[in-house]
């Protein structure tokens, strides 16, 4: 909620504000979760607010009492299972850190990336028009050649021939000493989850290699829910979770993947466990007939497209840095339409026009909610978007 600050104390870490929408008078104190800060707001009567504005010592004492949780009855900030710790003023007589320098116009960061289209390679986006192929986190520019067998399947799939799924499964199950490298297996797995039909994922043998796969492969699979999309993926992810829930990187990926697919019924403040996520999957699947899901509804990229559009417009208007680098590879992969790939850049008018033109082109495609697409081709053989 927007507020208007009447007075604040940098020395004593409190602020007396008026909420613009409601007119409510509040005293706020900063609290911290470590690398993430927040604030707690305490509602004040008009009389008390006026007195604290006038009397700095009284305001300081009141803020200290709030930090000691003595005025929790006035708290308007909703608390959850974790409560931020109040940021304490320095003891009297010690030096404060220097005041922050005045804001200057943002400059593009050292890692700003401006590309005509998302990188290809393991992202399997549109064929690259030039430049190095990149792995995993494309903005980090680690070059890695695409395995020839994977490249062959990807090339055919871009043209609508999705029959290479079997070759990918064979490659992934080949754990012989002369078999494919870990990099090739990671690439094959990423392409497979992007191409796999619901029935492929439901087939128990497809992902059986995960039973004794190196942890890097399991971790990558655990985090691939947004590309898997299929209702049967919930079973595959829960199977992986039963074997590897104690591995923090696997667990983190699985929670994200399952939350992307299904809707949890219980309070979001309850810690997600494999059991309650699996129960949520059962409930979701019972209520939802679509084969491909996002947040328990029929999958569609419209949310991502809308988010990219509104973010670009806002950043352009405010002159702040923009990035679509975490959305662009997926949108290009699903649609087959290349678009601008941007990280930490100030949008010029031309940049904005390019982003919006791409969003328009994506919106114009005849996406059918609940179907899954690879380069505009329905993975189940339905009508192509092209």
């Amino acid at each position, binding site marked *: 909620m927007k507020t208007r600050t009447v007075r604040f104390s940098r020395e004593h870490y409190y602020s007396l504000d008026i909420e613009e929408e409601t007119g409510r008078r509040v005293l706020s104190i900063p609290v911290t979760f470590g690398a993430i800060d927040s604030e707690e707001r305490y509602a004040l009567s008009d009389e008390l607010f006026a007195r604290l504005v006038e009397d700095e010592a009284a305001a300081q004492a009141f803020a200290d009492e709030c930090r000691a949780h003595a005025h929790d009855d006035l708290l308007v900030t909703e608390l959850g299972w974790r409560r931020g*710790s109040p940021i304490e003023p*320095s003891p009297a007589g010690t030096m404060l*850190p220097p005041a922050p320098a005045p804001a200057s116009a943002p*400059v593009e960061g050292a890692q700003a990336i401006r590309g005509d289209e998302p990188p290809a390679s393991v992202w399997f986006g549109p064929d690259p028009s030039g430049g190095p192929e990149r792995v995993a986190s494309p903005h980090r520019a680690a070059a890695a050649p695409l395995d020839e067998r994977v490249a062959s399947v990807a090339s055919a799939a871009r043209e609508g021939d999705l029959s290479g799924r079997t070759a990918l499964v064979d490659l992934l199950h080949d754990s012989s000493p002369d078999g494919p490298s870990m990099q090739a297996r990671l690439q094959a797995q990423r392409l497979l989850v992007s191409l796999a039909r619901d029935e492929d994922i439901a087939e128990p043998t497809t992902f059986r290699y995960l039973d004794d796969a190196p942890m890097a492969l399991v971790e990558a699979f655990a985090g691939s829910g947004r590309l898997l999309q299929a209702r049967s993926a919930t079973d595959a992810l829960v199977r992986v979770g039963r074997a590897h829930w104690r591995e923090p990187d696997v667990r983190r990926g699985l929670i*994200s993947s399952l*939350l992307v697919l299904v809707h949890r019924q219980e309070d979001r403040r309850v810690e997600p466990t494999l059991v309650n996520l699996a129960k949520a999957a059962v409930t979701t699947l019972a209520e939802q007939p679509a084969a491909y899901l996002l947040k328990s509804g029929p999958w569609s990229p419209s949310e*991502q497209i809308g988010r990219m559009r509104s973010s670009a417009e806002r*950043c352009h208007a405010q002159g702040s840095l923009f990035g679509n680098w975490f959305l662009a590879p997926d949108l290009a992969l699903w649609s087959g339409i290349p678009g601008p790939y941007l990280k930490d850049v100030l949008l010029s008018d031309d940049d904005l026009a390019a982003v919006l033109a791409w969003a328009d082109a994506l919106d114009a495609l005849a996406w059918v909610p609940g179907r899954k697409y690879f380069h505009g081709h329905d993975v189940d053989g339905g009508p192509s978007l092209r």
Partner: protein
Amino acid sequence: MANSKLDGAADEVRETLMAQFRRIARLHRKRARDRADKMESDAEAIRDLDRFDHMPDDLADVHALPNGSRPHPSTYFSREDLDDHESRFQNGGTRFMPRANLEKYGPAQADGTSFLMSSDEVDQMLIDTGGDQELMERALGLDPGGLDGDLVRVDVPNPFDHGIRMPTGNEKGANDHWLPGGTLPGGISEGVIDGGGLVRGVDYTVDDFVPGG
């Protein structure tokens, strides 16, 4: 184990915290194993992994001590572990805070320290979650709505210039939920810098942070 604040805690809280300490120990064991693998399975390095067996109890002891009296992490981590942790920040450190707080109080705590997350891991978290607010809150160990409001992303591109290190737990920003071992509850690496003299536009950049944007 030394007398611990956990002794008087509810069973559920105690078990939750011990689960976190076991998680952190597994994380550092995994990193040490990765380092050993890069040295082509050096036998000495592999044997050294046994030291992580006692780590959950060590971390519980450190956690039990009050802010201001906790030992330096070098007393319960090796130099290689600490170097590995610092290397997570080679591409910068990041923190999130309300815009108003930044403008009023600056990016550092009253003691001049400032907690940061690994920028690489924050970026990877954005990729993994696709910018979804609920998933990001989960990954950052926040309550639902923890990323509501007018937030900014503060990036420190060169945290080594400002003494990036594993937190001791004696910093002002080390709250009741602070965990020894240099990670957030969601697993993202956190470090601390001397942030009192940071200059905006030189030492750090500020960017709007809108979940989903």
